[in-house]
């Protein structure tokens, strides 16, 4: 047992020496995650606002100006100014200078004053569906509100009470994240994705490299067992993964002010399990890939696509098609994102996150087993 431990430590030391010999690798493992964190945290936002908009006022009355003013006040639309005609709208769309155009038809002011129907049109560029969808929703809601306002003031001006139907006014509360800061929402998930990218990438090449250099055979002739080799290969990267986690957590709390509301021990156990899962995935790739190129490419594919897209970090998993939902259970990131977000934002404890921790434990055991078995078969 002690001899075995000594062998594991020897392999781990060897791996550390490989890492420390290559300063770029250290930069890639320790600095790159921080750059990614800052970039994602600042750049990703689902709170669509300031959509560039132009107006076309064919009416030119006080009423039309008042109507258009409502858009200028709304946070969603960034009204850049009036344009001369329909061709100017289509030019602005083609060049990508505007995504929304608001047109007030001739006679709008007269119609409103006479209590008839005034026509307006809102044209939305659908080539960016996410913001177009929200734009449509907001435009409809805004017009309904303006319509009500118009009736109310018309009736009031004539001293009529007939239209005084009550109105519901939505008061929207945003729990957990009242400032609607995307950083709060993203960083706990981001941590998971970044660790996945770093660890899978690195371990996926370690065994391939030994094979290509012929050093794997030298290792095989020693008394090293398969599990010892795997353990020794995993240890240094697990250590670096934990260093990354601590750095990211520190930066998240100190720089971005992300709250840590829950039980830290859940997070610690979860992270340790998750790192083992991710490293095992890397080792599976390492066992399967024939060359460094395909190992690199598979790692890129797995850590970036399912790791990022199917983790629930940025895109809600409940609304994706069911085959992809099933696929998302095959990657450890999904469980860890729930744990991380639960602990950071919702203040969750063992009671709530127990199932997720259990799932990760099972995943870690299975993945590590598969990685060891595949490597054994490969060497036999």
């Amino acid at each position, binding site marked *: 047992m002690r001899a075995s431990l000594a062998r594991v430590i020897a392999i781990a030391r060897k791996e550390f020496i490989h890492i420390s010999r290559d300063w770029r690798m250290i930069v890639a493992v320790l600095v790159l995650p921080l750059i990614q964190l800052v970039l994602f945290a600042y750049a990703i936002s689902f709170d669509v606002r300031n959509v560039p908009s132009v107006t076309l006022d064919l009416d030119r009355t006080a009423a039309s100006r008042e109507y258009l003013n409502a858009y200028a006040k709304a946070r969603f639309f960034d009204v850049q100014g009036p344009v001369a005609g329909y061709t100017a709208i289509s030019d602005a769309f083609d060049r990508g200078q505007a995504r929304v155009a608001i047109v007030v038809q001739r006679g709008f002011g007269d119609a409103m004053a006479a209590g008839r129907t005034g026509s307006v049109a809102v044209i939305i560029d659908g080539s960016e569906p996410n913001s177009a969808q929200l734009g449509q929703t907001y435009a409809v809601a805004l017009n*309904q509100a303006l319509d009500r306002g118009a009736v109310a003031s018309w009736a009031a001006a004539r001293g009529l009470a007939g239209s005084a139907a009550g109105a519901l006014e939505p008061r929207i509360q945003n729990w957990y994240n009242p400032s609607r800061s995307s950083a709060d929402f993203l960083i706990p998930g981001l941590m998971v994705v970044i660790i996945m990218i770093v660890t899978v990438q690195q371990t996926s090449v370690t065994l391939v490299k030994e094979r290509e250099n012929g050093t794997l055979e030298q290792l095989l002739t020693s008394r090293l067992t398969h599990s010892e080799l795997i353990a020794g290969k995993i240890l240094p990267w697990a250590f670096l993964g934990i260093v990354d986690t601590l750095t990211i957590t520190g930066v998240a709390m100190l720089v971005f002010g992300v709250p840590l509301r829950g039980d830290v021990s859940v997070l610690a156990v979860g992270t340790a399990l998750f790192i083992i899962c991710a490293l095992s995935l890397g080792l599976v790739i390492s066992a399967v890939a024939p060359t460094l190129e395909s190992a690199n490419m598979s790692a890129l594919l797995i850590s970036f696509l399912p790791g990022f897209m199917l983790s629930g970090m940025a895109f809600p998993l409940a609304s994706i098609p069911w085959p992809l939902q099933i696929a998302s259970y095959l990657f450890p990131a999904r469980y860890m994102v729930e744990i991380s977000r639960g602990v950071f934002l919702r203040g969750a404890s063992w009671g709530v996150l127990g199932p997720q921790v259990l799932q990760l434990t099972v995943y870690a055991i299975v993945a590590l087993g598969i990685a060891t078995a595949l490597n054994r078969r490969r060497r036999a």
Partner: protein
Amino acid sequence: MNLRRLRLLMWKEFLQLRRDPLLLPLVFIMPIMMMIMFGYVVGSDVRNLPTAVVDHDNTRLSHQLTDAFSSSGYFVITQRPSSEAALQPLIDSGQAKVAIVIERGTAVSLARGETVPLGIIVDGADSKVASVASGYAAEIVAAFDQRLLAAAGRATGGPTIDARVRVAFNPSLKSVNAMVPGLVGAILMLSIMVIMSQAVVRERARGTLEQMMVTPITRGEYLLGKVVPYVVIALVQMTFIVLLGRFLFDVPFNGSVWTVALGLLLFTFTAIGMGLLISLVSHTQQQAQQTVMFVMIPTMVLSGFIFPIESMPAAIVPLTYIIPLRYALVVLRGAFLKGSSILDLWVPLLAMLAFAVAIFGLAVSRFHKQLSE
């Protein structure tokens, strides 16, 4: 430039690619996976949000309001707790993403013509859900108010605003339609950068580059022999994506083939230049891989490919101007969806030309310099 030597060089490159049985399948699996992920995951509409309703009013009107939410298709009412205290655990555990609280006396106050607050709680831990749910909730309540007004008989015959909200270019608002043109650009860049940087670094690391240079092969021939096979692969990948998008996802193509071709040509030079530059600064294949990631992540995030540029904070926006993919996206989306012509797109095309000349030129000159050392 000897054509026979060039042909042999390209042949060698293809042979090397074929020797790795996993690499070529990966080259084709990648675009399919990206297509599915981006088309279905990024593009998925937020629908069927699990919603809890606390109805303290319990009148016909409050039932109508609840129905208005559930019939919209965006909210599914899964829980009806009797008090607000029960909401906390429901939202904590994720069983409900949205909660609606209807106060007692809502119907009575509305009948009196008062304005009554309606409580809507969204789970802010999921900011896409929060943003979309608030928008839909506002729209449903506005429509409900409209109906109340109509029921009250618009008796006075007041004015109405007839607003026609119309979505141009992509009326079905299908995300795949916007994704496919973007994917063409992103995959072109990713696959040229990944495979090409690796191929050149490998030759250097193994010393075969020097062997190559003592043969009569000129640097120009070597460069062309390296570049052409990967451009061919990228072209096949792109055609594949466009066909998949066109026939499987029914993505429309409204523009001119020439605009797309010009944009892609300029962008290919940029991507090759970047692949070469990466291979020149990296000493091992692992470093090259890390550098590709280092370039790819900002490219994906800042180009507007997944996240719209307008919603980024003002301090980040200037950074997006140095991302070549940003311009390629404007050109490709413009040409695919809007039918924009080369003249409409002259600004981004010019930017792409500048990038192509600068990056490709720099890469080639550095390549020559490094070889002569």
